[in-house]
């Protein structure tokens, strides 16, 4: 389509719009369907964005830190800890290594065992926090060296439990995207049905238009404009309601975790604007194809 036809299409030709009689029922159906679909799309989008954020955060935060655990009898613990720290400082790719203090260890156990735990009486392993550099250290090499020099050391780089979480979050993001595609597809199907119904109901009108010299393009455009505008209006309203629903969700908080993080963040609030545009494009295409096909059959 040339620039001129797009402008004509958007601004419209009021006279041309009137050549097709108004169709109350299909109009309302189209409005409702595109509104409902846009509403659903907002949630799918929010889900997808939130799980994407989550996946990124987990991948990022957890990937950068690791824990070295020293399981040694009490009398060797200090010596092994010092040896491990020595090794870590010499290892390229380790930005920082630090033994946790007793208070810090107690704080980690607090949620599980309560405040008055006599830590010194328990064989609690010493923890060393390891922060990776970029590029990171060679975990296999480090393990090998530690096993030789610090028998009680166990390196836990979190990959074991991090990966399934990141994977789950990524699947959730994909599911959200697939939902959006399905919603777009269902919208296309509904609009196609409505457009077919409108075209069939206006057979006589199409015949008269042809007799007075209307080209297929002109007739198709009269239908396409209608359905596109309706889809745009319906989807805008549905999107606005969906965004309002998201906006009314509780603030993101640590206690709520993932559930409260479902809202859009910052510029993310602009994403839903794409939904009515997508809806209008989908119904533009669906009506255009339906119209060209019907007009071809009617000749």
């Amino acid at each position, binding site marked *: 389509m040339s620039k001129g036809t797009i402008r004509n299409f958007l601004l419209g030709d009021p*006279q*041309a719009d*009137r*050549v097709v*009689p*108004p169709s109350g029922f299909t109009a309302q159906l189209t409005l409702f369907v595109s509104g409902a679909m846009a509403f659903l799309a907002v949630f799918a989008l929010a889900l997808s964005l939130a799980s994407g954020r989550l996946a990124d955060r987990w991948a990022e935060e957890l990937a950068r830190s690791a824990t070295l655990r020293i399981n040694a009898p009490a009398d060797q613990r200090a010596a092994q800890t010092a040896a491990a720290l020595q090794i870590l400082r010499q290892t390229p790719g380790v930005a920082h290594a630090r033994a946790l203090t007793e208070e810090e260890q107690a704080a980690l156990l607090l949620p599980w065992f309560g405040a008055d735990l006599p830590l010194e009486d328990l064989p609690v392993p010493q923890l060393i926090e390891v922060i990776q550099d970029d590029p990171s250290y060679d975990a296999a090499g480090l393990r090998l060296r530690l096993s030789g020099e610090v028998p009680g050391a166990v390196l836990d780089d979190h990959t074991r439990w991090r990966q399934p979480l990141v994977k789950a979050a990524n699947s959730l993001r994909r599911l959200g995207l697939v939902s959006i595609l399905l919603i777009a597809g269902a919208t296309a199907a509904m609009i196609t049905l409505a457009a077919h119904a409108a075209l069939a109901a206006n057979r006589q*009108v199409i*015949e*008269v*238009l*042809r*007799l*007075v*010299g*209307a*080209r*297929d*393009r*002109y007739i198709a455009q009269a239908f396409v404009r209608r359905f596109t505008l309706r889809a745009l209006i319906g989807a805008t309203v549905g999107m606005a309601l969906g965004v309002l629903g998201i906006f009314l969700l509780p603030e993101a908080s640590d206690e709520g975790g993932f559930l409260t993080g479902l809202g859009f963040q910052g510029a993310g609030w602009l994403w839903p604007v794409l939904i009515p545009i997508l809806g209008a494009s989908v119904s533009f295409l669906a009506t255009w194809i339906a119209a060209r096909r019907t*007009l071809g059959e009617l*000749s």
Partner: protein
Amino acid sequence: MIELENVAYNYGGGELLSDLSLKLSAGSFHFLTGPSGSGKTTFMKLCYGALLPTSGSVKVFDEDLRKLDRDQMAMLRRRVGVVHQDCRFLDHLPVADNIALPMTVSGRDPAQESENLNELLSWVGLSDRADALPPELSGGERQRAALARAVIMSPDVILADEPTGNVDWEMSQRLLQLLIELNKMGKTVMIASHDLALIRAAKSQVQARVLRISNRRLQLAGADL
């Protein structure tokens, strides 16, 4: 302008029209007559491409209708004004918009040519019915509106199928005058009608040939008309 060569047509049953050949030259005036059901409307439809012949060829403005695609057919229809026997209006649009429809669909803005439209409305005596919807019109008013729509693009050829079918003698005379006037402006005119009195009245004012469909064939009617 319009040229038929060995045209035959059937609606799927027996042959309705056989072996028709005819040449309408520019500026000519023709009547087409014949009993009801003889195929006058069918013949007209063949002339503007609503039907394609089962054999033979129809050329309009030197273009073989069978070789035109839909867009080209649309362009051709803008140059041929047709009064359909059943008028064919869009019932949801007022009369004035229906008359302006050929302009609207060809992308011209009727508002800018409203002078033209108003003149045409008064020419067919429908100025005060411009805002009525087609179903609210009388038979004669519909036919006048159909004639106005047929000529609004100032086509080179006007094909009128029973343009006086529903009107009294006086009104049919008026419509005939309109068509004669158009012919004098150089338009090619063909009128399908079985109103012999009308044809006689026309022959006294204009050089008109009378064709008759009988026994599936086209004949030039004798001097008895």
